[in-house]
């Protein structure tokens, strides 16, 4: 009990010392994670839906508190599991929307993990950070468009299965990396 109280006190202290940059990033993690859960709840009708929502919310809080831990990955596993169970009948555009929100969560968690929770971001960091985020989201949108385009091609034109998967992955990787800043030649 005492250990729990100490842990809570420590977390409260950390929260009080959290810098605006980290509040923004962790807020993005929380909001985008909640968005993913709510969209999945709305669009997917699975028997385990409430349980998945509850588990996802718990893991999401952990991901927000500890972005440098396996918690963000665990949250994505929950989401993927949810879609695995209930997403077979959902329109593909819904999965694409969820993928964009996952991109926001993933990148926000990646940046939140780069510094301590009290690490203050200098003002001149805002511009490169915004440019990088925009580039990443654009690349994700292009990648989603490619996947949707490939899926839209009739089966007679492009064979389904491993072949198209490999082609799509390579295309997404190559084209999206061209769009992102700082590529090393």
């Amino acid at each position, binding site marked *: 009990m005492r250990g729990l109280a100490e842990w809570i006190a420590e977390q409260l202290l950390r929260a009080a010392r959290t810098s605006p940059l980290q509040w923004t990033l962790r807020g993005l993690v929380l909001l985008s994670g909640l968005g993913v859960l709510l969209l999945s709840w709305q669009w997917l009708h699975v028997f385990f839906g409430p349980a998945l929502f509850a588990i996802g919310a718990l893991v999401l809080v952990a991901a927000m508190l500890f972005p440098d831990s396996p918690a963000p990955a665990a949250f994505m596993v929950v989401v993927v599991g949810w879609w695995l169970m209930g997403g077979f009948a959902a329109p593909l555009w819904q999965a694409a929307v969820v993928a964009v929100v996952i991109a926001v969560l993933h990148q926000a968690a990646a940046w939140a993990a780069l510094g301590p929770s009290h690490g203050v971001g200098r003002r001149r960091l805002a511009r*490169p950070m915004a440019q990088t985020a925009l580039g990443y989201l654009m690349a994700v949108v292009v990648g989603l468009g490619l*996947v949707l385009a490939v899926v839209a091609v009739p089966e007679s034109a492009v064979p*389904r299965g491993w072949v198209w998967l490999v082609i799509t992955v390579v295309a997404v990787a190559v084209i999206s990396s061209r769009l992102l800043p700082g590529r090393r030649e």
Partner: protein
Amino acid sequence: MSPPSSPVGSSGGGPHSTAFDPTSAFARSTGLSLLVLLLAAALARPDLALLAVPLVVHAAWGWWRRPDASLPDLTVVTVPQRVGITEGEVVDLGLHVPDLPAHHWLSAQWTGLVQTTWDPPLGAVVDSAPDGIVTVGLEPARWGRYETGHPGLQVVDSSGSWRAELRPASSLVTVRPLAATLHGASGVARPIGLTGAHTSSVRGDGTQLADIREYRTGDRLRRINWRVTSRTQRLHVTSTFTERDTDVVVVTDTLRDLPDPHQTSTSLDATVRAVAAISQHYIGFGDRVAVHDLGRRLGHVRAATGPRQMRLILEVLSRTVRELPDHVALRPVASVRSGTLVFFCSPLLDDRIIDQLVRLRQLGGEVIAVDTMPAALGTVETLRGSRNRAFLDEAWVLRRLQRDEVLAGIERLGIPVTAWRGPTSLGSVLLAMEAARSAPRRTVGR
């Protein structure tokens, strides 16, 4: 902030071999993208493939940004490595990574230091650092030496996929005490030097009018006061007091460092500030100032004058060792010239110290006791709301009462005692001493 082209110190030990490690984000995007794509392929589920896209993009991005031979070994320079500032000033501490690659940011964390204020508050900052420099401001609260310790520094890839830890060198910040300007006169009754700014009681060449008297054999002709001579029809001369400098010795008692009940300052703080202010005051008059510590926390400074002496005293004060145990051996003052102005800065608690004080007076010094005991220590106000079950506060009240008796005895011997409360502390005492220049002196101990 020093320019990056002239770093004061380097990380030491030569260039670092930069080892970039993948972050948890890169591991997440790589591992999950593979897993989800396998599931998508195995189950022929394009929706899962869509969910994998952000992870695939990030994994590809991180893969393209992986550290390779094109990335130079990164070195880090702490700027500055040694710096001296005055109390109340802020110093910018920087970490400079000269070869910071494009699209890499710096995440720095300075270690915690007591009695300091950081800007940003906890000394942690994340910066895009286009010039390769990340800085924080440090404002020490008190004089002394502050070793910052090795700050933590991470070079992070802007995609959040890779990071490398560097080990910068520590910084040493020396904070000189702020030498407050004393208000009041010089207090020098009997200057013992040859030429200077204090008016002595000896008549001779000077500017301060002493008397107009009849001419005697040996008087200088330029001293003839023609106006009085023509009125009285007898030769009269103007006599003046000579102006001389004097020797000032600041004796400090650092045998104990007594904190005040609020833990905001200590007797050592008051002593250091008093020494700085007194030294500046008398060096400004052109007097020779020496510092002698009866304990071992402060260094000894020989008598000299001028701006260099002032800098030397401040340097010695800033190197005062706080962490010395109390009650170390006493180093008595060997001797003082008769007429030397002696400022005795002490909490006046130890009998050996009181003996030294009286001894200096017997040696002929013009002694002023500067009481550096914290004002709130041992006062009745501290007993209100006190929950100290060891009755420490009550003990201090009794000790202060005992001390008051001793101080009264010291004053009966003709040694003025004044509490150090800042630049105005000595004003009345110095004025009284100067006014008493011509008063008869009382001999002590005979």
